[in-house]
């Protein structure tokens, strides 16, 4: 009976920023999939809800050197310092309305438990957590199109991306019926992954070497020698994480050929980037 929790997964994604066109399909599919409410007037982005948000970054250079990159940002599902599950938001929630699922690596959010103190929002540097400032108001008839697999939220609670956890629940349910132990890689994919027309998002189990995401990211289980709080750093020199140096240990990785994009993923003091950027290339060689 204990088999249920025997195998630990670590679901994560890698987003190829060079493929992303900024079309916004991921945002739209996410909102539709997860019953995300919207406002009549969406012009103020600071109080509207977009679990998956696409940021626009530029290299700050004048024409003709101007380059633009679009960066989709779901909840980063941080595993926290040292990867022990104390993500910035989970450890601060006073009412245990969010936890770190050690069996999946997914950071949950339970709307009926949350009482809206918003401490988690303050603690999250990615702005991945959103508050329901209003009760959701659906246009006439749209309620019938809400997904029954995702519970709707009420005003006054925090919500965020769940890596479409309900899809995992449903995939597992099917596996149970067919008396299988495990689900296939393609049985559990997030809405944004499946919606991306460019195929920029790859989702899977970072603990499973067969999964595409693991093949791209090649996560290093050893702590970063420069910062013991950081684990799961990618051994692919083209892959980086957002604000990796803070030790949040996100499970959303980004991939880009362009150096300025990789640099934009974190903060570096003057001259630091030059010493850090090739770090992984070096360790890879020394590891053989």
């Amino acid at each position, binding site marked *: 009976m204990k088999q249920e929790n025997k195998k630990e997964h670590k679901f994560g994604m890698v987003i190829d920023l060079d493929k992303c066109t900024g079309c916004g399909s991921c945002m739209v599919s996410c909102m539709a999939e997860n019953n995300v409410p919207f406002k009549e007037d969406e012009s103020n982005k600071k109080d509207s809800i977009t679990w998956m948000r696409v940021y626009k970054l530029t290299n700050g250079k004048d024409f003709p050197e101007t380059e633009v990159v679009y960066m989709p940002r779901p909840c980063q599902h941080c595993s926290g310092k040292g990867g022990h599950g104390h993500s910035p938001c989970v450890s601060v929630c006073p009412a245990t309305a969010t936890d770190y*699922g050690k069996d999946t690596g997914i950071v949950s959010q339970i709307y009926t438990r949350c009482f809206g103190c918003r401490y988690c929002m303050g603690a999250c540097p990615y702005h991945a957590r959103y508050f329901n400032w209003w009760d959701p108001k659906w246009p006439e008839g749209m309620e019938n199109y809400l997904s029954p697999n995702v*519970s*709707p939220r009420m005003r006054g609670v925090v919500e965020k991306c769940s890596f479409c956890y*309900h899809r995992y629940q449903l995939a597992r349910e099917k596996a*149970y019926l067919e008396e299988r132990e495990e689900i296939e890689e393609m049985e559990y994919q997030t809405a944004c992954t499946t919606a991306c027309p460019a195929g920029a998002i790859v989702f899977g189990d970072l603990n499973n070497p067969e999964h595409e995401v693991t093949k791209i990211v090649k996560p290093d289980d050893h702590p970063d020698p420069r910062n013991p709080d950081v684990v799961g750093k990618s051994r692919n020199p083209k892959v980086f994480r957002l604000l990796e140096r803070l030790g949040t240990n996100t499970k959303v990785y980004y991939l880009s050929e362009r150096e300025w994009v990789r640099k934009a993923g974190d903060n570096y003091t003057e001259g630091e980037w030059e010493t850090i950027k090739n770090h992984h290339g070096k360790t890879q060689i020394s590891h053989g």
Partner: protein
Amino acid sequence: MSAIENKSENRSTENAGEGVSEDTRDDKGLGLGVIFFLVAFVVCFLSGTFLFPKLLYSKKEQPFNFDHALHTSEAGDCEACHYYREDGTYSGNPKLASCLDCHSEEPLGETEDEAIFVEEYVVKGKEIPWLVYSRQPDCVFFSHAAHTIKAKMDCVECHGHIGESTVSRPYEENRLTGYSRDIWGKNIFGIKKNSWDRMKMDDCAECHKERTGHQGYCFQCHK
């Protein structure tokens, strides 16, 4: 507390008036206070035990009576009507179409309920608005497959002996939450004797802890 206050108020007025105190008077005040306290306690206790649950829950009747015992003897076990779909999800209460596998516009029995069923629902082609005793809140994900197939649990463990019932008891709805009373349980103190007496998160966790060694992460049962 009230006894003491009664007494001291009593005393102070006397003192203001006469400047002397009499112990007998004091005792009387104390005695009244104790009686008041006891009466208040009994009133609160009784109303809390008997009146409060009546106020908290509204009783609703099912559209018509459903005889589980009769159906299981005719149609087979639970899964004959409450089956799994191909994608692993659980069908829950059968739709009218399933009923029509056996029933038709010709009543199968002579009961009044059969007559209501045929006239109101079969003839009109309307789904039966059953009130589901075990309906969990929106935020709950429950996989029947995980429990009955993977963990090989029996329906009775959570649902009790509903399959042997001949009458549909009234559905009790919590006026505040809108949830079925079967979630909290019949016992107002939340005490349970059988595994099916309650369907709270605590009950899920208790069983999970016992059988899997962990009460589960939030998303195991929430959506």
